[in-house]
């Protein structure tokens, strides 16, 4: 599901956690970075060497929890905002979670904020313990919030819960076909998909042929917007492979220029 929704699966998260024993003994960083991408700042920043050096820059980060102090530098530097600082032994009753937070307004110490899970759903209220602005690390503030112990590895965001919920289906299933002929395909010349299809049906299967006959791509953008769409339409209707359709000519200038500016130039001609 992670690949479809952006919400990391429970297993991925629980596998990233240290042992129960370590979790109970002081703050630690949890790195929720589950995709191999070329990125390594976390390994460079850690003053304790707890994020192990990578053989390859695409490797997933690996933690040595024995040396991690939960200092929070990695959370401040991570470009993906994927590192959180957990302290399950913050007090006898509550835990704390440090979350990188790049929004305004920035919460203040003592504020009570809504705590959200990885899918943006409300979990619990939490009290802000501190806000570290991290000016040295590109101004990614880390906001540390007090939350119930059993929620500390559930909450990953605060406050900015959107009202945006996808509306229930309302459209008529017998609506027009998916891409009616009246849809504009070339904005500059106001040419519709229908006009293009009609020409393709007559055997025109080349971008430049269509350009000459119905002006698609002849306008000021010179096809920058529509060239690919028209080639796709040719490909769809004729079954020709996209790469076998000629792209058509590209002519100067790359953007319109007023004739006035071209007056003169005799010294170079």
């Amino acid at each position, binding site marked *: 599901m992670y690949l479809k929704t952006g919400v990391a699966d429970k297993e991925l998260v629980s596998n990233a956690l240290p042992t129960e024993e370590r979790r109970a003994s002081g703050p630690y960083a949890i790195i929720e970075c589950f995709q191999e991408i070329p990125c390594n700042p976390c390994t460079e920043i850690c003053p304790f060497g707890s994020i192990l050096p990578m053989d390859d820059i695409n490797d997933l980060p690996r933690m040595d929890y024995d040396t991690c102090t939960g200092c929070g530098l990695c959370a401040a530097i991570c470009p993906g905002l994927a590192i959180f600082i957990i302290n399950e032994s913050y007090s006898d009753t509550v835990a704390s979670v440090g979350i990188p937070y790049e929004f305004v307004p920035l919460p203040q110490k003592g504020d009570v904020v809504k705590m959200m899970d990885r899918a943006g759903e409300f979990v619990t209220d939490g009290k802000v313990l501190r806000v570290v602005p991290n000016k040295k690390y590109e101004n990614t503030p880390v906001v540390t919030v007090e939350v119930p112990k059993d929620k500390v590895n559930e909450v990953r965001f605060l406050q900015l819960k959107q009202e945006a919920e996808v509306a229930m289906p309302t459209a008529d299933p017998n609506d027009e076909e998916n891409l009616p002929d009246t849809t504009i395909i070339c904005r500059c010349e106001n040419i519709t998909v229908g006009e293009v299809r009609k020409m393709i049906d007559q055997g025109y299967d080349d971008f430049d042929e269509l350009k000459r006959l119905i002006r698609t791509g002849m306008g*000021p953008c*010179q096809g920058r917007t529509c060239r690919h769409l028209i080639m796709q339409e040719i490909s769809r209707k004729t079954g020709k492979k996209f790469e076998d359709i000629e792209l058509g000519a590209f002519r100067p200038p790359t953007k319109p220029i007023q004739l006035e500016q071209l007056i003169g130039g005799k010294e170079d001609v």
Partner: protein
Amino acid sequence: MSNPKTANVVIIGGGISGVAIAWNLAKKGVKDIVILEKKTVCSGATGRCGAGIRMQWGAEQNCLLAKMSVEFFENANEILEYDRDVEFDQGGYLIVAGNEKENEQFKKNIALQNSLGIPSKHLTPQEAKEIVPHMDETQIVGATFCQKDGHLNPFNTTEAFAKAAERLGVKILKKTKVTGIDVKNDKIVGVETTGGYISTPLVINAAGGWAQEVGKMAGVDLPLYSERHQILVTEPVELIQDPMYMAFSLNIYIQQTPHGSFIMGRSNPEEPRDLRQTSSWQFLHEMINTCTTLLPPLRKLNLVRQWAGLYNMTEDAQPIYGKVDNVEGFWLACGYSGHGFMLAPATGILLTEMILGEPLSIDITNLDLGRFERGELCFETSVV
């Protein structure tokens, strides 16, 4: 659909001349006509031309050929049963004289044109300005005007001929390049193409800029060369200019299409004489310097695109029509020197008459290949 293996007539070149000849031949009952086009119809000189047509010529023969073509174009949509529009806009041609000598020649031309039934007239600079109000009339000493002249949409016009020809059974093979012409015992027997061999007794060279190359394939060194000509087009504005504005002495023409964009072209004797179709920045300066001097408000237009096409030139700037004497079955319709588009209706009619041995509607026998050897060139001075 596989390509035909044999044909009665093979036309090389899917430009306006090729499709016009094909349609005329088919209309007269000739079967199994194949047009070979290396790219797509209208992708060569036709698709790159200014598509103007004028009857204001200096030589009688050209006046007559152009008149025949104008009369055809006036009814082209109906004759060719075209479902779109060739956009024949008879806004006229305003041809301006830059000096007195030119002005005097124009007056003589008018007398000739009028005697042939062409309704052209001579204008003073002030009268010319009434027709094109945004011109700087101080730049000219006189002008001629013929309302019946005008311009067309070259793409649609070619499509109209092509579709009409196809309805009569003509096969147009696009993206099919001629790689050789098979001549045996001084007779055409076939054509080699990238799409296979086609046996045929008759080949028409309507290859425009590439006519010289095609000639060589049949072992004929045609007295032709190709020369680059450049054009630019602007963004559309509301319609302000009806006629084609033309100046022979400055080698330019400027028109506004029904779409609203201005199309302008310029000849330059220093253009390369090869098959290059690239554009140059020099052209932009030269064209725009001239254009904005003659028609100052056009300086506010936005240039959208520039391109180039090939003029297929002869020594006397007149086409070559007719057969090649020492290669039986090899016909020429080339060397238009920039006027192939406007002459196409006449080309189609007359070449068909020649091939079928019918009496010619206009005598063009003097435009044969032999004139170069005979030294009987037919000069025309009113050209850009």
